[in-house]
């Protein structure tokens, strides 16, 4: 009895000391600190094994670039039409990862099957939009901007989410792209997200003596109307953000081993940031190219292996740290591919596609809607029956508590998966 009491005393004192030291980091939390984060950390440490504060829902968007072939991802293993139109490419049931009697996953996605079995995976079929465009850059722009297919918008849906979160803030880090170049999806009207592939490298670059001095010498804000001021504002935000991101990435770096691929390392960075106090709510990362006009089997298998291993490491990591319920990971591609295979053992650009939704906090799990109707095609292509903007609306409204209508420039239905 006495022994455990003095142990508690020591722990208590330790926590107080840690709290005092950590106060500086606590103050780094952005404006969106939730109620649970205001609670002193030493108290929360008693609640669970992890030293990491729970709460704070985040979204991770995994973009499959190039038009992933959905039919060989979520496979209709009892559909004759599928095998008839894909004599060589069709994946047989005994090779695939079984989900149900009728549906299997691509053989390289074993971890996705596990997530399905654990109730952490949902699949949305036939996601697309009216008057689909089959050009990569056009369709990707449409998915990024959430525009209609005949509109050209210069901002992205996550960028506009950032506008709302970051009005006048000095560090637009509420959305982060794990890449070197910023996608349209994360460009807003007034704010742009930060693209950072390697927090250490961005920190190094932005801390170069010359740039720091240029910033310092510029002084506080000048007349905002002068065009060069926009560059200084961006530079100031970049330097602050680079600092903030790097320091946060070192707060509670994950101890889990991730595959040494671009995607693996990207997810590792994301996990480390999730465990920190950073104010980031949306992470964005890409994998590609899935543009399998020729020799689809090898290319899709290679990429899916990367995706499977990276997502497995990520979700295992999150589960270990009790954060699986706080994270919603979803995949998308700018279009699916045609039902019939082509003459080069590949497939050509198509239309509607499926999306994976992964979280411990799903309200609906498993296969959420009917598989594509291969007897009712549009000129050889799948017909969509869920507008992707409904998916965005659901994520924005139900997961991020944001004003979806404003961000998407219109009202869309919310679904019930979260």
């Amino acid at each position, binding site marked *: 009895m006495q022994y455990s009491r003095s142990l508690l005393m020591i722990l208590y004192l330790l926590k107080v000391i840690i709290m005092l030291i950590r106060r500086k980091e606590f103050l780094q939390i952005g404006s969106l600190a939730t109620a649970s984060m205001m609670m002193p950390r030493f108290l929360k440490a008693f609640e669970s094994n992890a030293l990491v504060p729970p709460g704070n829902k985040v979204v991770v968007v995994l973009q499959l670039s190039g038009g992933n072939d959905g039919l060989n991802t979520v496979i209709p293993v009892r559909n004759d039409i599928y095998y008839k139109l894909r004599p060589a490419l069709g994946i047989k049931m005994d090779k695939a990862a079984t989900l149900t009697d009728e549906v299997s996953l691509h053989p390289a996605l074993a971890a996705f099957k596990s997530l399905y079995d654990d109730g952490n995976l949902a699949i949305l079929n036939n996601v697309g939009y009216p008057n689909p465009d089959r050009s990569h850059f056009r369709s990707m722009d449409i998915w990024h901007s959430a525009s209609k297919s005949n509109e050209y918008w210069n901002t992205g849906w996550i960028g506009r989410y950032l506008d709302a979160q970051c009005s006048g803030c000095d560090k637009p880090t509420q959305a982060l792209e794990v890449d070197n*170049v910023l996608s349209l999806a994360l460009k807003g009207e007034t704010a742009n997200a930060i693209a950072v592939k390697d927090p250490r490298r961005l920190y190094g670059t932005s801390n170069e003596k010359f*740039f720091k001095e240029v910033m310092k010498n510029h002084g506080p804000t000048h007349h905002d109307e002068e065009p060069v001021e926009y560059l200084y504002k961006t530079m100031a935000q970049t330097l602050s953000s680079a600092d903030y991101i790097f320091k946060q990435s070192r707060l509670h770096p994950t101890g889990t081993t991730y595959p040494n691929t671009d995607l693996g390392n990207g997810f590792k960075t994301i996990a480390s940031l999730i465990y920190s106090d950073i104010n980031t709510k949306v992470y964005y990362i*890409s994998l590609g190219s899935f543009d399998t006009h020729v020799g689809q089997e090898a290319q899709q298998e290679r990429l899916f292996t990367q995706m499977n291993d990276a997502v497995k490491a990520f979700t295992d990591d999150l589960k270990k740290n009790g954060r699986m319920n706080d994270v919603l990971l979803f995949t998308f591609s700018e279009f699916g591919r045609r039902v019939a295979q082509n003459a080069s053992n590949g497939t050509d650009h198509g239309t509607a596609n499926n999306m994976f939704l992964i979280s411990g906090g799903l309200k609906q799990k498993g296969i959420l809607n009917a598989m594509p109707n291969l007897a009712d095609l549009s000129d050889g292509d799948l017909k969509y029956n869920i507008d992707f903007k409904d998916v965005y609306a659901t994520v924005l409204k139900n997961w991020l508590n944001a004003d979806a209508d404003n961000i998407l420039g219109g009202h869309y239905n919310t679904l019930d998966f979260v």
Partner: protein
Amino acid sequence: MEVSNQLKNQHLMWRAGFGPSVEQLRDLPKYKPEKYYKALVKASAKEPQYINVASDRLIDLYEQQQGTGKRKTLDETQRREINRMQQAAVKDLNLYWLKEMVTSPAQLREKMAFFWHGHFASRNGNIFYNQLLLHVFRKYGLSDFGTLLKQVSRSASMLYFLNNQQNRKSRPNENFAREVMELFTLGRGNYTEKDIKEAARAFTGWTANSKGEFVFRENFHDNGEKTVLDKTGNFNGEDVLDIILENKQTAKFITQKLYTFFVNDKRDDTIVNTLAEQFYNSKYNISALMETIFTSNWFYDLKNIGAKIKSPIELLAGIQRMIPMKLENDAALFNMQKILGQQLLYPPNVAGWPGGRSWIDSSTLMMRLRIPQMFNDKDELNVAPKQDDDVMMGRRTDGTAAVPEKVRAARKIYGAVAAKIDWSGNINQYEKIKKEQLLGVIKNNLLQADSPNIQQVVSKNIDASSREAYIKSAIVQLMSTPEYQMC
């Protein structure tokens, strides 16, 4: 405050060209801008030489593919080879044209071509179509807008990009008609959907052959009566373009775009409307319009000087004009364009590049600031651009072999840019300048937007080990500032 001739002429060079070259620095203070402009016009007067980067082998294979050559059909390997050569050739054309922008004395001509190539935005995987369209921009960029519009509308590149070869009487495709009205001439909101449908009917039959020549396919053409923009008749495509040109809104829309590109992102509508009247009344004479713009007093107002953010191409070309260099591998320039968000011949979509502040985000800004050091071999291009599937897979519906590239290789690590800079021009230029004045003089030659503290920062970090080192480090540092991004 009196704006010096030097500043005015620098302003003129950044807007009517790609920035002053180091050789031009001597002349800039000597002439009034009107005179300097006359020299620019003269240097652009000759008809441009057609640029061809396609190798004989590619030309030969391409002709075989189209069945116009001697030998018969091609096998899979050959078709893949053609596709790869086509992709490589378009890249070569990009780098060739960029080099023209750097070295050509016909700065005005190349700058106008650069503007039109962003206005009439088109993408194509076929090198021959690209070369033909580029020549249209360079040849007709200073002529009259009517001629330019018609040449572009009949180009293989544009017809295929906007799917007009699929536009026929039985199954009209409206894309071409829509973009011509919305983006190339009248602007959004100045026509109806009905106008588009009817105009599309007029453009039926407008196609191009594999040589890139315009071909009118009579049997695709809908020769019924049409009503476009309140005019009725049995119109063909040419008629519709004439109707569009008769509409003053076209002059207004084009003038607005020219103003925001060449003068200031913030439009002065009084000036624009006057210019538009002039443009329309002169039957869309482009060189007369540009002369008015570049020789008017308001153009040299302080509020217009240093007011625009340089586009990636203006930045890259401008740097090379001031510090001439030889690159071991031109591919670095191609990757830089990609990373900065603008590649010649690869507009993001038919609306072109929005420009202005959209050039700047945290990544592109840091990259811009680091580029001079990369050229100077003190930094590495350790950033990989995003992939571009449309180009990589070579998928066009234009008749070129629909055979894609082999599976993508693992990501390369980008290293040193390996540029050899020729500093002699700059060393000579500043020969007679006293040490104390050197930094100030260099700064005035390089920056159109000034910050009172920039000179201070540069002088603190300068390499004073020798006069040469001083000049070099001054130039590289000044180019590494936010101020240098403005022109």
